[in-house]
């Protein structure tokens, strides 16, 4: 197990290095420097600025300096938000995205697993149709269509919740964004859970359990649940990652001050260091999540041996 974990961890290094390098080079070879402003900056000021950000050094040295500061957890300074480092911006934005993404993922796991299991046990029932309906909604309507429509219905027409905005984790601002994420996630989780539960329930060991005379409850909860959950576990990783990606969309729709909003505003302001820093950060989070999911999978599935 440990050697597998170690090997798996080492394998993440090339991924990280590749992404960082490609993004860094992209950034470097983009025409137009960060100090191109409408006002002409005098040569002396420009030289000083370049000195400060080590831009007068050769490329390889700048790159190594950047890697070095990354290793120390420093994402650099923002070019547009003066007096803000990328770290400080991230520190204010990350909790917003993490709470919305994390809580909605938890809620959708509970709902999705329950609905999916019920749908599988009672095929062609109301629950079953609900799961299948949600599944097809999720695959046809993208988040950026459902999101504004939710706002239109619940915030503008029914006036139940605010259309967007943020007030220090006040729940009424989190209801709509979380509902959007829950609808989308439950669609996927429910469909996968339904499929795997149907498959597990028709397998031999379930027939054995029934033959022993165990009641339905015990068969489902003690025997069928664990193997049926495996495909859902493998979904958590991609979902946690897509929660970050989806944050870009939800936070734009509901104007939440999270990571996604930061990335979009950084991109439209051409705040290069901010966007690069965020991409690096999210890549690290992604890679770590994939790693954790693989390890969890290895722990849960007795068929996997290293």
């Amino acid at each position: 197990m440990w050697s597998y974990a170690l090997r798996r961890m080492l394998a993440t290094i090339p991924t990280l290095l590749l992404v960082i390098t490609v993004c860094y080079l992209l950034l470097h070879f983009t025409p137009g420097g960060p100090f191109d402003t409408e006002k002409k900056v005098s040569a002396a000021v420009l030289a000083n600025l370049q000195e400060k950000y080590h831009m007068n050094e050769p490329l390889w040295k700048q790159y190594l300096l950047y890697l070095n500061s990354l290793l120390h957890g420093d994402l650099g300074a923002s070019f547009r938000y003066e007096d803000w480092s990328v770290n400080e911006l991230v520190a204010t934005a990350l909790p917003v995205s993490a709470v919305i993404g994390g809580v909605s993922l938890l809620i959708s796991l509970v709902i999705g697993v329950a609905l999916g299991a019920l749908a599988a046990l009672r095929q062609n029932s109301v629950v079953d149709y609900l799961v299948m309906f949600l599944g097809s909604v999720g695959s046809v309507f993208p988040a950026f269509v459902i999101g504004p429509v939710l706002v239109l219905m619940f915030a503008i027409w029914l006036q139940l919740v605010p259309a967007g905005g943020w007030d220090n984790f006040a729940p009424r601002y989190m209801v709509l964004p979380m509902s959007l994420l829950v609808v989308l996630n439950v669609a996927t989780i429910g469909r996968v859970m339904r499929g795997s539960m149907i498959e597990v329930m028709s397998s031999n060991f379930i027939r054995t359990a029934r033959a022993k005379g165990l009641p339905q409850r015990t068969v489902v909860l003690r025997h069928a649940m664990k193997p049926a959950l495996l495909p859902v576990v493998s979904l958590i990783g991609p979902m946690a990652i897509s929660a970050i990606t989806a944050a870009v969309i939800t936070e734009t729709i509901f104007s939440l001050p999270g990571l996604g909003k930061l990335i979009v505003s950084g991109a439209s302001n051409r705040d290069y260091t901010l966007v690069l820093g965020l991409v690096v950060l999210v890549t690290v989070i992604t890679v770590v999540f994939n790693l954790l999911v693989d390890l969890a999978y290895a722990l849960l599935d007795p068929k996997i041996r290293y």
Partner: protein
Amino acid sequence: MVFAKKDDALVAKLGEAIEPALHGRSPWAAARTRFARNKAAMFSLCLLGLITLACIVGPYLLPHAFDSADWEAMSQAPTWKNMHWFGTDESGRDLLVRALIGGRISLMVGLMATIASVSLGIAWGATAGFVGGKVDSVMMRVVDIMYAVPYLLIAILMVTLLGRAFYLVVITITVFSWMDMARVVRGQTLSLRSKEFVEAARAMGVPTHRIIFQHIVPNLLGVVVVYTTITVPGVMITESVLSFLGLGIQEPMTSWGVLIHDGAQVMEVSPWMLLYPGALLSTALYCFNYIGDGLRDALDPNDR
């Protein structure tokens, strides 16, 4: 010669009678029949054809231009009057024409990015599958890495840095949508290489290029066609997301993503600005999904 000469006519007749049976149905004809029997897929195909046709010819038939303002009908709700069937935006531009023009761009981006990523994916996957060994493992490692990166963020970084011209958006989307195809084609190539019918062809002395084109490519084509239809909606969603974030197609050009973005800004006063483009995009995605499903059912040789 078993038959005497006078029996020639009889032989010809017999030949005619068993001709269809001898030829059988080609896999493609069989697939076409199966696809035609799939109602959802056929309906989607017709609907998508209609939408595409409307996007191509519609703007010529309608009296409004996509970028000209009708000062007498600003933020006009959908109405029969003056042919503003989808309503107008806050500067009086006709939404129907804009939605059709936007559809051209969205479908065009979808088509071009799909062609590009499908070609890249096939080339990558087939090379990895045929060459095998070290080359294969390095090439597939690249695919793994591409899967592990948060593609939307890097796409955002790319359009931020490179610019938002039409072809740059297409390139950016292509970079992140070829991996599925590469994996599928590689897997298929690997398994086909060691199939009995390929071995049989080899044993019969069929030259390699004929094995590739007569035995491997037709078998590859099925999955390629299926995955192509699955790639299209994914690609169109990526374009729309970028445009929705204000980072894709730029004014005065428009796409469904741009229209949904604009609509979301003004939905309080003009909800039709959001609902119509959203419905159009969703309909197109729905069609591609069902056509993809139908093709998979029709072309999957293991599913007879």
